[in-house]
């Protein structure tokens, strides 16, 4: 095949171009290899996960007792602002982009991303953004108006919001946003233009599909947020009056532009997770995903509807059309329901192996279901009026972003770690990690539903010593400590596994998708050869090639 010859030539060139004398640090700092960049994304994001997790422990320490223990109001405001901002913009979004970087080109049989140098640029803006954001601790205090940074609180009209922290917050998010947009351009171009021969759109692995829809959301939503940030920066520093009602501006305008991005961003944070789950569940059930095309269309449906629900964050402003945004919000639960049907039907009658990756995938299914359902409660305006700004909302966001995204991230990490390193993570430590995290997570966040129904407001560092409130808060603090503890077996597992000398098989899980065709870890040029691709499970076809009695094009979703 002509294409294979061309690739081996490219491989020879690549091998020739890399000088063996270069220091490894120089190699990593200057690399444009999507796999190395992907690893850097994962490591950088996980570091920020640790920082933001530490802030969460501080929050829980303060809330363990009524009254002020360790952090006053101002410090507490900074804590939850930085916790939310870091988790969302420096951990969840880049972490999933990191998986995308490493896995997507492998899954579609490409040599690299379409624009490798732009890819490196996207990555390097992220640690820079983190440093800008956290430099505020040295320069007069970080942002303190919540991760949503509502105007006029963030306008600098009041006293505390005038700190330089909010300006640094804006600059950091402009960097993250630019990195995301360039990344989205790169992913979409890669997926449209770099697929291997035979890899039609409807044969792409589901993780790649979700990355495509995610990238479209990022491409079209993030620039609107950029415009909001720019307007806020102008208001704060150049005397603009976009969000300043005293001068003819509109404060609620910020909420509109902010949520026009930040609601699609919710799907940016969960769609790739759904993709990971949809690659993991079939492998450990020994079945194809039930309803491949339904899943793809449900993903596209979530992407499209994602742009029409932003104002459900603003029901209590009294400035939005309640029936429209309420109905659209109920409606967006439907494609997610379709996906739950896909996943559960995949498990039914499968030969299920409860590996750690599978446990985290099932953890995602159950936890994200709870998060989705308690979100649907909030779609109803009367319920929203009662529950908004209470701990119910905190419970909801953590069930979708921790119970959803973080569980999916770990599922993907345990699943693809053999691809990154050639070695499987230890299953015993992995299961200890899973159960500690699962128990700690539910202790912390399930009780927040009850606390929310009891009326405890969020973002407050002090509360009255009502009997149930104190007990529930203490339970949450204990749960948070268990979550923090659960990362110890995980980190120990990674270190021990990387130190192991022996290697596991190239394809330890008997995967279905193309990334398992090449060596683990893959060579710089990814593939020495490519198999013929006739379905969305080319490796399954390869393993069972001798059993095929029908023409390969007639199998599964072979039709274009």
């Amino acid at each position: 095949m002509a294409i294979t010859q061309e690739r081996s030539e490219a491989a020879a060139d690549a091998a020739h171009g890399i000088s063996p004398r270069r220091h490894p640090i120089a190699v990593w700092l200057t690399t444009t290899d999507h796999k190395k960049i992907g690893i850097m994304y994962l490591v950088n994001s996980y570091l920020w996960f640790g920082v933001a997790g530490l802030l969460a422990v501080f929050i829980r320490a303060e809330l363990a007792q009524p009254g002020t223990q360790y952090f006053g109001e101002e410090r507490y405001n900074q804590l939850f602002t930085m916790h939310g901002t870091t988790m969302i913009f420096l951990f969840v979004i880049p972490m999933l982009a990191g998986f995308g970087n490493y896995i997507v080109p492998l899954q579609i049989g490409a040599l690299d991303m379409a624009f490798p140098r732009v890819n490196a640029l996207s990555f390097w803006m992220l640690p820079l953004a983190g440093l800008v954001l956290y430099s505020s601790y040295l320069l007069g205090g970080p942002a303190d108006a919540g991760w949503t940074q509502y105007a006029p609180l963030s306008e600098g009209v009041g006293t505390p919001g005038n700190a330089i922290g909010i300006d640094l917050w804006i600059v950091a998010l402009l960097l993250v946003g630019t990195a995301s947009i360039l990344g989205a351009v790169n992913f979409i171009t890669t997926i449209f233009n770099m697929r291997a021969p035979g890899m039609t759109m409807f044969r792409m692995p589901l993780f790649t599909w979700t990355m495509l829809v995610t990238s479209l959301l990022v491409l079209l939503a993030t620039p609107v947020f950029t415009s909001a940030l720019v307007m806020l920066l102008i208001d704060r520093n150049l005397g603009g009056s976009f969000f300043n009602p005293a001068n003819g501006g509109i404060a609620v305008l910020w909420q509109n532009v902010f949520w026009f991005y930040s609601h699609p961003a919710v799907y940016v944070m969960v769609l790739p997770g759904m993709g990971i789950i949809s690659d993991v569940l079939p492998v450990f059930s020994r079945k194809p995903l039930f309803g491949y095309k339904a899943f793809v269309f449900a993903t596209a449906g979530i992407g499209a509807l994602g742009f029409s629900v932003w104002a459900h964050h603003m029901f209590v402003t009294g400035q939005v059309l309640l029936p429209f945004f309420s109905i659209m919000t109920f409606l967006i639960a439907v494609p997610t329901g379709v996906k739950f049907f896909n996943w559960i039907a995949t498990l039914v009658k499968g030969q299920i192996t409860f590996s750690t990756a599978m446990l985290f995938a099932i953890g995602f299914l159950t936890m994200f279901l709870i998060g989705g359902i308690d979100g649907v409660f909030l779609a109803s305006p009367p319920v929203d009026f009662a529950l908004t700004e209470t701990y119910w909302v905190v419970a909801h966001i953590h069930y979708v972003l921790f119970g959803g995204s973080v569980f999916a991230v770990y599922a993907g990490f345990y699943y693809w770690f053999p691809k990154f390193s050639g070695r499987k993570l230890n299953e015993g430590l992995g299961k200890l990690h899973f159960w500690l995290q699962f128990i700690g997570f539910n202790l912390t966040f399930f009780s927040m539903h009850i606390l929310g129904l009891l009326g405890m407001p969020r973002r407050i560092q002090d509360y009255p010593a009502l009997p149930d409130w104190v007990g529930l808060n203490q339970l949450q603090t204990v749960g948070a400590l268990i979550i923090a503890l659960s990362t110890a077996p995980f980190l120990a597992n990674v270190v021990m596994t990387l130190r192991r000398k022996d290697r596991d098989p190239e394809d330890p899980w008997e995967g279905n998708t193309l990334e398992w065709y090449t060596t683990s870890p893959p060579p710089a040029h990814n593939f020495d050869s490519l198999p013929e691709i006739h379905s969305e499970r080319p490796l399954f076809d390869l393993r069972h090639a001798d059993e095929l009695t029908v023409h390969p094009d007639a199998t599964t979703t072979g039709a274009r």
Partner: protein
Amino acid sequence: MAVVDTAALDELPAPEHHKPGGISSSLLGMVLFIASEVMFFGGLFGAYFTIRSSATVWPPEGTPHLSALYAAVLTTILVTSSVTMQLGVWAIRRNDQRRLKLWLVLSLLLGVTFLCGQALEYSKLIGEGMTLSSGVFGSTFYTLTGFHGAHVAGGAAFILIVFLRARSGQFTARYHDTVEMASYYWHFVDVVWLGLFSTIYLLR
């Protein structure tokens, strides 16, 4: 950079896997980037219309007069530069490198003229007391036209780079994606201006 005999490359047959009718990665990347830019300006326009629709009087009292005629001249200059840019693209599609350079220089000059015209208008308006901080009209006016102006400047820099590359003979009828990219971007900047011209100057 190694000297590549592009004329010889032109003689080669197209690679086997090249899909006829497909869009090259660099052009697709440019189209996607422009899509994100459209959404960026969409956010600014959205803010403008929201603020405008809630104002009782628009433009607010005390706003200096904006000359639609002057803006129409600027519009003509920018639209003309779009035409010259496209003529440059058509020239290189015929492998006419000399005309490509000519049209690129002309487009660049027109773009710079537009920017100078905008700077003149800014200085006049600032002299009449309208600034970013003078009120909501000033904020929206300078932010929208300012970001557009920055994009014109960026596009002009892009055209300058394309011109320098054209001067060293890097483009041929088959290899000129960068020229096409610059033209896409330039047309996009032009269309944004048409939007600004009609909303800020014409829509009273």
